């Protein structure tokens, strides 16, 4: 599978990039979280949510190939 992953706000301070393509096994949101924490261990200290194709989905649902994944820190609008 290939996923496009976008990072925002404080998360980019851990990843040092705001976008990357990730090749990995078919994954759920839960699995994706674990993979990200393995790649960027300092993310453990951060609160974040993962959006798949601009939506929040159940953690156990498999993420389709070529999905757009966004790693979002707490919101601060307004």
């Amino acid at each position, binding site marked *: 599978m290939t996923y496009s992953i*976008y990072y*925002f*706000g*404080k998360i980019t301070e851990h990843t040092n990039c705001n976008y990357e393509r990730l090749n990995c096994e078919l994954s759920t949101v839960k699995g994706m979280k674990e993979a990200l924490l393995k790649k960027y261990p300092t993310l453990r200290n951060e609160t974040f949510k993962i*959006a798949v194709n*601009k939506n929040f989905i159940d953690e156990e649902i498999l993420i389709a190939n070529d999905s757009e994944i*966004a790693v*979002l*820190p*707490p*919101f*601060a*609008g*307004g």
Partner: protein
Amino acid sequence: MIKKDKPKKKVFVEGPILPEKIANSIAHHQVKTNIGAHDIFLGQVRADEIDGKIVQAIDYSAYEDMAEEKFHEIREAAFDKFELTCLHIYHSKGIVKSGEICLFVFTSSKHRNMAMDACRFLVEEIKAKVPIFGKELFEDDSHQWKVNK
């Protein structure tokens, strides 16, 4: 009349929302004589003191595609929930200095209750559901990331 199925409107404004924009927006509604009440919410950047340092500005960024979708959903929900004539939402992106306006929500209805309730609903929904991020900048070039309460 409920305005639904309109094309998605652009919410983000580069830099602060100027008082002139707000005044013009009010003026544009004078032709809509079925309106009897407006409510306006303005979010302003606070010069908070954090560990002895004062916030000079907030640098706003967003997951813009998702944010525009969420703004659209929130707008539709407000039209479903309240009897509104029209509503407008503008949010800054980029640098907004302390004292400047970063959010402008404007609701109009026949009577006050709908306009006021809708305005509050919109502000709460925006703060909770729209992926916008704020980097609070201090004078010494350090920063911290804002989190909505």
